[in-house]
């Protein structure tokens, strides 16, 4: 039995402790926005936040987690799709197939938490998600637009 805190809710999951968080999210909790692609922590499609930090959920056994750690998935990033990144992604039509985008958005959201106005070099060094459609240039523009949206929201 694993006890977790996901998107602000406490959940008890009856699962083998070695099961990666990704599969608990997808198969026990029905949170399929977090994607499987490589299973070895490289591509970032499975990115979630653990206490606000980006984490690749496909290589994290649930037994290593507890309810004090707040896990956020794409479904919990905003209530209504209004996170500045979601607004920016919509404005620029960033996704193509869209499969990597939940992970991409979660990686960028974590970056923005610690670095609210990242330079291109910051983006290059922190965003290592794979997108096989090649949306990277719109992803980059989307990050800068999200920063603008956030600034407008604060002013």
């Amino acid at each position, binding site marked *: 039995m694993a006890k977790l805190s996901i998107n602000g809710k406490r*959940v008890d999951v009856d699962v083998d402790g070695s099961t990666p968080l990704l*599969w608990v999210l997808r198969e026990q*909790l*029905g949170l399929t926005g977090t994607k499987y692609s490589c299973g070895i922590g490289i591509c970032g499609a499975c990115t979630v936040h653990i206490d606000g930090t980006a984490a690749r959920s496909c290589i994290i056994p649930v037994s290593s987690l507890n309810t004090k750690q707040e896990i956020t998935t794409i479904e919990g990033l905003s209530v209504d799709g209004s996170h500045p990144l979601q607004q920016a992604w919509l404005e620029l039509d960033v996704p*193509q197939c869209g499969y990597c985008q939940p992970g991409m958005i979660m990686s960028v959201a974590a970056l923005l938490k610690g670095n609210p106005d990242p330079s291109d070099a910051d983006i*290059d060094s922190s965003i290592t998600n794979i997108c096989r459609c090649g949306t990277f240039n719109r992803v980059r523009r989307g990050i800068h637009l999200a920063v603008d949206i956030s600034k407008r929201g604060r002013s």
Partner: protein
Amino acid sequence: MKKEQVNISRREFLISTTTVGAGFALGLYIPLGSSLAMAAGETSSAAPEVNAWVVIEPDDTVIIRIARSEMGQGTLTGLAQLVAEELECDWSRVRTEYPTPGQSLSRKRIWGSFSTGGSHGIRGSHQYVRKGGALAREMLIEAAADKWGVPKAECSVAASVITHKPTGRTTTYGKVAAAAAEMIPPFEVELKDPKDWKLIGKPIKRLDTVDKLTGKQIFGADLQLPGMLNAAIKACPVFGGTLASFDGAKVSKLPGVRAIVAVEDNAVAVVADTWWQAKTALDALPVTWNKGANANVSSASIAKMLDEGLTAKQAFVGNQVGDAKAALKDTVKKVEATYAYPFQNHATMEPMNATALWNKDRCEVWCPTQNGEAALEAAAEAAGLPPSQCEVYKIHLGGGFGRRGAFHDFVTQAVSIAKQMPGTPVKLLWTREEDMQHGHYHPITKAKMVGGLDDKGNLLGLHIRISGQSILASVRPEGLQNGADMIAFQCMLPGGDHAISYTVPNLLVEHAMRNPPVPPGFWRGVNINQNAIYMECFIDELAHAAGKDPLEFRRKLMAGHPKSLAVLNAVAERAGWSKPAPKGVYRGLAVCKAFASYVAACAEVSVDNNGKLTIHRIVAATDPGYAVNPQQIEAQVEGSFFYGLSALLYGECTIKGGSVEQQNFHNYPSMLIAEMPKVEVIVMPSGGFWGGIGEPTIAVAAPAVLNAIFAATGKRIREFPLKNTDLRSA
């Protein structure tokens, strides 16, 4: 006039996946299938279709049916634009739906081909989908005129509102749709003149973005059906090998395991409550394989096979002008080079998957597919049932790139597993490792290029001998022409969608077909990926041998190819070819006609003293004839550079012991955001034809960069990917 009502039943259901212990609920709209629909209490829309392409709800929602698959390339939105342009409907009320392949079968393929490949989505169906929209419009207007008792000619329409011009009375499509559905469509209808287009040509937002930002978009891998089990699979890693045995007793007691089954003659699958349980048990399952005849095939043995083809006496001829061999004997300067291009995996982000439900008299499949009709055929064959007793529901694709079009091995497997568990839906999901090792790879070829110049540096003769794999021979042998695979000559042909961009006085293009036992497939760009490298890099080699500027050398050969010349000139001008590049930055050019579109690129790169390549900027031009959605064309052009340059930098599947050596993204890397160049896209539709978008640009990505690398380093790289080469200056 009225007709007998034809209506298809649309099945769309809210499936509530109430989650274990957590109280989360995801509402997923997915087609549930007839067997399960009964149980779920199907509710189908009351609105009848106006015609096969258009359904209008009483509240003025416009549903446009799309037969081709959306896999990221934007065709869903583009096709809807084409229908809506003629329909004159309110774009803000448009949504789309996929008819099923089974419905297509029962209605004599009323939606035409479902195949989504070869950059055909729009160029292959623009005529009939626009006609569908136009006919629906005429029927809707006629229904309003009938209702008012006025001549149809007195009525006009804009944004779903029909107006009787003399009286100013109005009604909406939603109010007359039911009556329109009973009209007999006009026999003929004229399509709009392109100058009158209002939606086509506009950079309209995609219709399918919102759900991709919140995790709500359901891909095949995400599908959940009531009572569904999950399967993980392992096929013999050696191509052509078979399953010898497995010891199911070793894992049958592991948590969640429900069954361990042989799949076809070459694979074994574990079925369990969850996929993770299935995968865990599969990893622990002892399996033995009959490796078969290919157990000793290696990259080296394949290279030897291809080398022999480079000089073999017999070869198929794809293009012949004058007498190239004789001309080459007489030239003042002869240039020779041999290029080689490796196997590559599509590596869609979403691994292969399909969900199947088999009963003795019906089989249903839910899957991401580029060709629903082919998926239906595969399902029927594996199910042992006629196609009329099968159905396929297309689920959104997490990438396609050709992997999910001609090949439905994942459907065959899913049905084969489901058939062993009648009445239970089973979702089969491949691991990344399985996906990497059981692809249908970009074909492997080599090319020997020989060119001859006269004393003034003019190109007198060109002989191209390609040796290597034929996709058609493996995938669609009925498509061979007297044994020749004409798509092996893409962008080197005398005319057509893949015509050569140059006029060469003496030209010979040949293909010595050599088919190693590694399954080839259509891979975004098909054969232009390597052929354009061969052609465009070698033209660059010839230009340098002639002591000429690569742009001027090309221009001289392109007088008879004005559209190709126009895109080349456009990139040269935008990139500032005539002016020096910034210090340390070098430029390269490439041009190509592919999938009926004209494309060109100028790349700007630098290579530092350690051999580190930076691709700073790409200027790309595309003339697709008509540009349906320019902002989506830009996205496809950018994506093509990503895919083409990832292939150039990293893409390589090597063979050892009859198997692909690469397993996952650690040894089959992809370009990351840090490596992605700026891409400036010039969309320059010249009108009068319909060219493809998703693939053509990939042709120029690699050669433009390679030519720039030569300019920077003096090194001609002729074997790929670049990760294997030291780029430090020669």
